């Protein structure tokens, strides 16, 4: 019998108030919608806005047994690019990992050119999720929007599962706007990825 079918381990970085914990929860709900097993949880520090926050999500096709933090994520989501300067956001991240950064700037511009070369081009993506979110929500809350890009980047979850998770978590108008932001991010991500593929 195999160890847990650990298909995808995702780590989300951001700052308190940006919905980092919710992002992981949404991923887990989306996976549930697809009939898969998922586990989402935050790492806990003192609760205050602006403090670095990390959350985790495991997605698998068999029951997930371990509850320990994810040391070697298969996918990294960075909701706040200012974290790239200080924290060791890339700890345990291997060369085949997916890296999604919330930024209108590219990896070179972000000062990550050298680092980026250690990863697979088609698995790196930066999208301006905060701007997109601001247009849909009126606030630069990027967590749900980014998940649309995540779906495009990794193919691990379908966009409609993400949207269903968003609508379940944010009933009413808020859910619709967040879902629309996720759709836009998804489309943008697909365009960027195909550009990379044809580069």
């Amino acid at each position, binding site marked *: 019998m195999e160890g*847990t079918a650990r298909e995808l381990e995702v780590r989300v970085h951001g700052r308190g108030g940006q919905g980092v914990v919710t992002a992981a929860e949404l991923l887990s*709900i989306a996976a549930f919608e697809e009939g898969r097993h*998922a586990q989402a*949880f935050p790492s806990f520090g003192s609760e205050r806005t602006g403090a670095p926050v990390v959350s985790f999500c495991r997605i698998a096709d068999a029951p997930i047994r371990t*509850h320990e933090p994810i040391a070697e994520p298969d996918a990294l989501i960075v909701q706040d690019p200012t974290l790239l300067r200080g924290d060791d956001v890339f700890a345990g991240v291997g060369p085949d990992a997916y890296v999604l950064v919330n930024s209108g700037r590219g990896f070179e511009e972000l000062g990550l050119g050298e680092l980026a070369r250690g990863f697979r081009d088609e698995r790196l993506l930066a999208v301006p999720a905060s701007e997109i979110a601001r247009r849909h929500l009126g606030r630069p809350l990027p967590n749900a929007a980014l998940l649309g890009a995540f779906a495009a980047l990794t193919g691990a979850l379908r966009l409609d599962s993400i949207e269903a998770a968003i609508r379940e978590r944010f009933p009413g108008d808020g859910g619709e706007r967040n879902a629309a932001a996720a759709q836009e991010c998804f489309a943008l991500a697909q365009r960027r990825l195909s550009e990379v593929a044809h580069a």
Partner: protein
Amino acid sequence: MLRQVEGSAAVAETVARCRPEVVCAYPISPQTHIVEGLSDLVRDGTLAPCEYVTVESEFAALSVCIGASAAGARAYTATASQGLLFMAEALYNASGLGLPIVMTVTNRAIGAPINIWNDHSDAMSQRDCGWVQLYAADNQEAVDLHMQAFRIAERLSLPVMVCMDGFVLTHAYERIDVPSAEQVDAFLPPFEPRQVLDPAAPVTIGALVGPEAFAEVRYLSHARQMQALEAIPDVADEFARVFDRPSGGLVHGYRADDAETVVVALGSVLGTIEEAVDAMREEGVRIGALAVKSFRPFPARTVRAALRRAKRVVVLERALAPGAGGVLSSDVRVALKEAPLDVHTVVAGLGGRPIGGESLRRLFADAGAGRLEPLTFLDLDRERVEAELGATALNGGSGTTVGSGA
């Protein structure tokens, strides 16, 4: 119904379906989402009739439960860590008075130094208070154990603590089968107290008992805990029949029957242990795990039987008895009596330090190779502690005044 839901939320809903009539709430991390969830369910009328009492301390929380339970109401509260200690006097009182209160303990370290993260110090510190202590390995089991807890408590007239790892389980979103009201009602009958405060048939509860009778009263509480050794598996069996899934019971072995090395543990770390076991089994190592589900009463006979074919036992503890060593290990050693087994205590995960799969595999390999000391601290920063010990040796005393050499 299968849902992707936070552990705390699932526990709150399940507890609500157990129809407590009095719920006491005093907030402490990481139990807060449970009492908040219950508040919502009372306010929106889902849980009714129920009095939700916002108390002024944990001591009050359990005391209000004591009054409520003595008056014949099903009573519930939740706490952790410092809060559990703050109600310590009331813990003994509740068990001594035979009140079937159910309480969630979202295991958390005890300060000083203050630490809000998971370990088992809190419940362990109260292991002799006379409460039944059940440990959940995951959120499904946490949900299930609460239903079983009310049955066990009311059958024995003993209070029951359901332990679930703070943050690790409470704040984890997982796929959980949350029972429906009908399912719970079918499993859990209404509360019929053994004795009750009622003007129609007055009783005096809580008399002063002198040396001439105290020992007998205490013996009876021990006897009732021993009865729990039967009640717990009974209720678990019935649960499995009604809900069609196993949970609870006294212990649960994982690939332990033919194992040379068996890892014994409580709580959520068992998931990581099982994964390590599987990985090592792939490599041909004969290793298994034994989950202890009921810590009090301690199922000595069952543990002994489960370990009878092992050569060595590693007890992985999320607690520490300073000056003595392990806590769970002591009970395991007593259970094993003079069995020809090596028992190794590994203290890990204190104050929420993660216990990684890699660390465990190395640890288990060491155990298999006979490289483990009787007492080990996993992932301890030895340099740091030795530097500190060296510094205080230089200074002597408790300050930096006399004898502080160069």
